[in-house]
């Protein structure tokens, strides 16, 4: 069993790593990492904009985004992916690469989820913070940028992290529209071997676990660093140890 896995790894590591590149499109783990990183990097700012739109006093901004968030959250991701895969070329006539389709769909879907997390973080802050910023002459957006968001995002790190992790895992769904990612490569391997699905997909599971765990670990380190700095511990002085903030366990979507 273990020897099987080692053999599979030795034979197919390059396919799992970069797909058929350079003879074909970049795939495998490399593509999964690129897709994940881009999805997170784009979904995060998008989610902040969506959260601000949801909190806006202008209906023209608030309503469309609210509808988008509700619809997106109420529909399975797989359905959205298939929809954009089949409908966008039908309606626009454009030949959209499946990678782009997958990226866009993920950004909108995870952006919608994340925007509710961000909105929750903003709403949970006391009104006093916005009042104080306004009283000092900050504009609404200035107050958001310098006062509200730094606190709201920090408080929401655990929930933001779990959305990031589920974004990474959701990249596997690109398989159904032939995005050549790690899952796609693993299934190619499986199709060639035919007899060792358990071993092949165990490798897949372990790789995904390591990626997600690394992100979790990195985020926890970041969070600890911010907490220490805000408690004044990095200043090197003896300061009262502040109890770590209570973490809110959030379910993953």
């Amino acid at each position, binding site marked *: 069993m273990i020897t099987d896995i080692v053999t599979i790894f030795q034979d197919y590591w390059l396919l799992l790593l970069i797909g058929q590149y350079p003879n074909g499109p970049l795939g495998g783990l490399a593509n999964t990492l690129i897709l994940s990183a881009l999805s997170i990097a784009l979904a995060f700012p998008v989610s902040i904009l969506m959260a601000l739109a949801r909190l806006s006093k202008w209906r023209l901004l608030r309503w469309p985004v609210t509808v988008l968030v509700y619809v997106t959250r109420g529909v399975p991701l797989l359905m959205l992916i298939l929809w954009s895969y089949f409908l966008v070329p039908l309606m626009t006539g454009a030949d959209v690469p499946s990678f782009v389709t997958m990226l866009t769909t993920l950004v909108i879907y995870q952006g919608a989820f994340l925007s509710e997390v961000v909105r929750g973080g903003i709403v949970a802050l*006391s009104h*006093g*913070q916005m*009042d*104080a910023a*306004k*009283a*000092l*002459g*900050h*504009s*609404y957006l*200035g107050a958001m940028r*310098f*006062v509200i968001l*730094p*606190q709201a995002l*920090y408080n929401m790190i655990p929930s933001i992290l779990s959305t990031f992790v589920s974004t990474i895992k959701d990249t596997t769904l690109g398989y159904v529209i032939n995005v050549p990612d790690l899952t796609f490569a693993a299934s190619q391997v499986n199709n060639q071997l035919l007899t060792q699905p358990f071993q092949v997909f165990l490798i897949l599971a372990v790789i995904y676990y390591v990626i997600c765990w690394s992100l979790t670990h990195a985020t926890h380190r970041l969070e600890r660093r911010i907490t220490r700095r*805000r*408690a*004044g511990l990095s*200043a090197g002085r003896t*300061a*009262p140890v*502040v109890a770590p903030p209570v973490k809110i366990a959030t379910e993953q979507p």
Partner: protein
Amino acid sequence: MTSLDRTGPQNGQDPTAIRIAGVSKTYGTYEVLKGIDVEVARGEVVVICGPSGSGKSTLIRTINRLEEINSGAITFDGQNIHAPMKTRDLNRLRSRIGFVFQSFNLFPHLSVVDNVSMSPIRVKGVSRDVAHDKALLLLDRVGLADKATAYPGQLSGGQQQRVAIARALAMEPPVMLFDEPTSALDPEMVGEVLAVMKSLAKDGMTMLCVTHEMGFARDVADRIWFIDAGEIIEKATPEEFFTHPRHPRAQRFLADLRH
């Protein structure tokens, strides 16, 4: 101070710092403020007192438009704060009115010195170095120079409120508003905050304070406004107010305080 000649605005030499004219505010059918008409002269220290729920805090929050009003006008710097205006103009007006909150509302993610220097940098465009030096001076003034690198969570309530005063002063406002600045403090910390406020008053700052500290009112205020059920029912000097309150409601309020 109380008998300043009040003529109209004359090139910024208007002796009136804040003019509140016919201000009314309702929450649904409940009238919080019923046609308030008062003025604060430049350099004057006014203490607003009254029973809880009388509209004191609402009144002071309308002055920099943290609360909207239903009718009337509040004039500051020759402009009605409650007139329809661009938000940029409102922000500029607000930046010239210092406000100190009951619950301090320091920014917990910023160090003390950043709390004080952030708004001059971001709102007024002061350079980082200048704002930083100014912040240290102000912190020294409120007796907290040694806490510059601390974070608000490490400070006592009294220290936090003094930082909040320094933060408001950093914008160099000609007027300071205090909304029950000592009500959230442990008794032994009230004195340090009042001392800072007293020194501000001595320097000629125009101040409006909602407070229950009658000792402060007696020693520092030029005038006392007694507010009840949304109306200012007594405007008097501290001597008059504490020795001969005219309105029965004010008499009862003072009697209750003596218990």
